[in-house]
Each structure stands twice: as C-alpha cells, then as structure tokens.
C-alpha cells in the first residue's frame, strides 16, 4: 500500500463525508426536535441536486459565468427546502403528530414515493451533468496528488460552517433557544407560551433546506439521476443512527467515519463499497444501541 493511495483514500473520504453530513444533519435535527423520521428527506437531496443542475445548465446556455452558480446553488436549495418542505409540514405532517409511530413513518414514506415520482416526471430518467463549478475552482496538490479544490476544500468548509453555524444558532439565538426548549420538554415549553407549532415548522424547513443544499452542492461532483434520493436517505440514516439520532456534532464525526470507511472499501474491496457504511453502523449499534454519542435513557415503566 503506497502513501499515495492512503492519501487519496483520506481525501475521498473527507469529500464524501462532508456531503453526507450536510444531508444527515438535517435528518437528525428534524428527528431530535419533532421525533419524526422523515423518510422523504432523501427526496429533498435529489430535488436540490436536480434544481441546481438544471439552473446551472441554464446559466451555461446563456453563457453566464459559472461563478454565479455558487450563489445560485444556495438559492435553489432554499427555494426547494422552504417551498416543498413548508407545504409538507403545513398540510400533511401537522395532522399526524398525535398518531401512532408506524403511521407517521408510513406517511413520510408515502410522500417519499410521491416526490420520487414527481422528480422523474419533471426531469425524466436521463442523467444530468453540470460540472463547471467543480473545474472552476481548479485543483490543489496534496502530497503529490492533484485533487479538485471544490471537493477537498470547499465542501469540508461548507460542512464545518453548517456544523458550527447550527451550534451557534441553537445556543445563542432566540429562535434556536426556542427549538432547544421544545426539544427538551414540549409541554413545559408550550406552558410558558412558546408556539410549538411554529417551532416545528421552522425546524422542518431548516432540515429540508439542509438536505437540498447537500443535493445542490453534490450535483457538480456526480451525475444527477433517479434513485439518488433512495440511496441518500438510507445512507444519511446510517450516519444519524451511528452517531445517535438527534446528535448534531456526532453526525459530523460519524459522517467522516463512514466516508473514510467507504473510500477505503473503494480502493481495497470494491465489491463491498455499498456494504461498508451499513457494516459500520451495524457494528457500532451492536455495542452501543443508542449510537456513538447518544444518551442512554432510563426506561419508563
């Protein structure tokens, strides 16, 4: 095993882990606050990717500089996350907060089926390629290996920014404190006049926007095609579960762990590439059922 392959593995793992983190953190945030696992979360990733790729293709069709693509990615992500996510929370999820847990799962699963189909109706089954933002940032050479700056510098920076931004938001701002209060004890929070409905709405929109941002940023690094949503929901769940559902900081470490695991599988056991993330999850959960950073809760009798 040469040094170069080792470095390449690490770089691949960081690039991949950053993307997965962006999606997983939204999933885990929504779960932490609302106690609902949004199976449709992967669809937001796919919708974000499609929206970004098609906006980017419009840009290049008009010959506008691809530098505009970066702000446009954020616009696309926010547009998808707020509109689709907002509608979903307001008109569907709000009706099922009091229902049984398996029905909540089924409802988000039904929305997943719908969004998956809508996305195929709008964009078809042909893959989309829009790689200009990737090449625009150029390459960096690390230990003699050229790697795209977009993947190995820009994406990890965005991931770190989201991680610390979210921590700051939850700890230092009023809206964040309200979210934390509702998470800790919904009844008590409602009793002192916090509008839990609004908090749920806000949290859900933040979560879905993060997922579509992940998709938008992923679009230059991969071909955008059907099925990417289903893959991503399972993968981001694996990350969130490995970290412990609801753990934001833990999700970053778990994403990196799973990213590195996957990239080393690509180099050393290519057949097992798809299996490794789940293998990591299973091993972690066998020893710590509440996840690496989850709190053990006392059982209520």
């Amino acid at each position, binding site marked *: 095993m040469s040094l170069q392959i080792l470095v390449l593995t690490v770089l691949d793992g960081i690039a991949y882990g950053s993307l997965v983190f962006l999606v997983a953190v939204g999933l885990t945030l929504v*779960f932490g606050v609302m106690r609902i*696992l949004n*199976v449709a979360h992967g669809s937001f990733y796919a919708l974000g990717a499609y929206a970004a790729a098609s906006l980017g293709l419009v840009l290049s069709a008009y010959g506008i500089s691809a530098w505009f693509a970066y702000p446009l990615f954020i616009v696309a992500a926010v547009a998808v996350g707020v509109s689709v996510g907002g509608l979903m929370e307001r008109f*569907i999820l709000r*009706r*099922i907060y009091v*229902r*049984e*847990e*398996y*029905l909540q*799962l*089924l*409802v988000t*699963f*039904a*929305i*997943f*089926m*719908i969004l*998956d*189909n*809508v996305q*195929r*109706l709008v964009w078809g089954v042909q893959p989309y390629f829009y790689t200009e933002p990737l090449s625009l940032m150029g390459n960096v050479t690390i230990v003699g290996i050229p790697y795209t700056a977009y993947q190995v510098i820009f994406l990890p920076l965005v991931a770190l920014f989201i991680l610390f931004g979210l921590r700051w938001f939850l700890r230092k701002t009023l809206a964040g404190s309200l979210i934390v209060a509702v998470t800790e004890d919904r009844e008590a929070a409602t009793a002192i006049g916090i509008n839990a409905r609004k908090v749920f709405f806000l949290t859900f929109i933040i979560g879905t926007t993060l997922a579509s941002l992940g998709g938008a940023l992923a679009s230059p690094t991969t071909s955008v095609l059907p099925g990417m949503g*289903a*893959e991503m929901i*399972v993968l981001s*769940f*694996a990350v969130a*579960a490995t970290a412990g*559902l609801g753990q934001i900081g833990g999700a970053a470490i778990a994403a990196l762990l799973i990213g590195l695991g996957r990239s080393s599988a690509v180099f050393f056991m290519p*057949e097992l590439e*798809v*299996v490794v993330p*789940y293998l990591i*999850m*299973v091993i972690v959960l*066998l020893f710590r*059922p509440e996840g690496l950073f989850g709190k053990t809760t006392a*059982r209520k*009798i």
Partner: protein
Amino acid sequence: MLMRIVLPVVVLVAIVLPLATSGWDAFLTLVWAKALPVLGIILLLQAGQVSFGHAMFFATGAYTAGFVIRAIPGGEIVIALAAAIGASVVAGLLVGVFVVRYRYIFFAMFNLAFSMVFYSLLEKFIHITGGSDGLSIPRPEILGQAMERSEYEFVLYYLALALLVICLYGVHRFLDSPLGHTLKAIKTNETRIEYLGLSPRRVLLIAYIISAFLAGLGGALVAVFQGIATPEYAYWVRSGEFVFVAILGGTGNVFGALAGSFVYEYIRVTATAYVGDTWQLTLGLVLLVIILFAPSGLVGVLNDIRGYLGKGRREPTPSGGKQPSGKTEKQRGEEQ
C-alpha cells in the same frame, strides 16, 4: 365471520372460476402469490412494526427457486419451493436476530438498509445473478411431469391458491395462539411481556421469520410463474408496495392481505394504461388518504358499512372501539 363465511366462499369461487371461465387465471395467480408477502407485513404490523425491506426476502425466494431450477436438469418445482422457503427462513433468521432488537423507526430503517444492500449486491454480481437483466428461469416440472404452458399455469394457479389458503389460515390461528397475543402485546405494552417472564425479542423474531418465510414463498411463486427473477424484486419500491397493499387491505385481519392484493392487482392491471408514468405517485396519494381518513383499510370500511346497515351486528374493528363494552365479549366470540 370473515374466516368462517367469507373466506370459504371466496375459496370456493376461486376453485370453480378457472373451470367456468378463462382469462382470469394469470391475473389471479399473481394475486394469490403477492398476497403472501403482504400477509407477512400484516403479521409484523400486529406488533406495531413496519418493515420497509421485505422485498429482500421476496427476492431471496425468487432467486433461490431460480438457481435450483437451473441447477437440476428438468427442474422440479417442489424442490425449488422447498429450497426457497429454506433460504428465506435462514435469511429471516440472520437479519431478524439483528433487527428485532429495535422498534419503530430503527426497525423500519434497518430493514430498508439491509434490502438496499441486497439489491445492489444482486445488481453487482453479474456473473452469478445476471445483473439487472435478471435471472431467467426455465419452466420446471411438477412432480416429475413436464408440462405445456397452459397446463403448467393451470396447476400453478391451484398450487398458489392452496398455499395461500393454508398460510392465511395458519397465520390466523397463530395470531389467536398465546404467542400471537404476546406479539400483539408488543404494540400495546412491551414491558408487561417482560414482567410475565417472556422475551419480546424472541416472540418478534419468530414472527419475523414467519414473515420472511411468507415473503420468500410469494417471491418464489411469482418467479416460477413469470419465468424470471430481477434485482427489482428486492428494490425498496417493491417493499413499499407490500406495506401499501397491507394498509389498503386493512391490517386488523389476515383477510386484508387477500382483499388488498386483489384490489391492488386489479387497479394495477386496469389503471397502468391511464396512469403509467404516475403510478408511484398515485400509490403514494392513495396511501396518504387511507392513513389520514380510513386507517382500518378496505376490510375496516366494509365492517363499518355493515355495522351501519345491520345495527348492533358490528364487529370490533381496529378503529371502532365505539360499541358499548358489554357487547364486546359476545362479538369477539362471533368473530372467531
């Protein structure tokens, strides 16, 4: 009532039908076969658990049957089905030992994760599974008899029907056994089961293995009927369909599997011409409507209508706890 009158009537009609008219056989064979995995989902739903990954056992059964038929010269359907059952029970045990440690979200998602891995393995190992083109399965012999196509389908119809009826009855009896009641108690209060000295995990594992067996048998029947097994058999959309059909039929009764499977296949056959591209969208919308407005499914709706028409003869349904409590015991006796 359902098991005593409706089921025998349906079975009788099903037995006579291919002798009276033709044209329904192929459709109904698929209905019988696909009701089996749905029955497995309904069994797990009794414990309040949803699996988004049962298509993996469906595919396990289908591929095992395919491999066995290809390996034995001539192929023997009995051996193929037995092997498919064996393989799906083993798979159910292996996956089950892990997933029954968890409930609700984790249970559902781990099943999904396992099935996604299985799906991509089926697609990747092209030299064994034939990749995304699938594994073509030659027509097997039945008890050593090589058969023409029409003859083969005729026999398969009755074989699938017989297996389905046995399984429906078996699961119905299982749910009424002490073990079955313990399974239902996982949904209501798991801690109480532990205080009784029983292991909820073990009970759920048994139910999980049975559901894997049902899914595997269904997959094998579909595969030998259609002559092909593809990785799509293990895809999450297929798992979603099973759950969808279970909710559509109604989860309170094993009969829901048959009712749901029939209605679903009928709509699929007649509606694909109109909604082709939006099939999954339609499924999702209908699923939402059922959960939000008619959570007890077709069987529940029928029960409600009957209760409304024939006042006082209402059976307890999962949704309707409205009747005066004094009558419940009597009605429960009537149901059995």
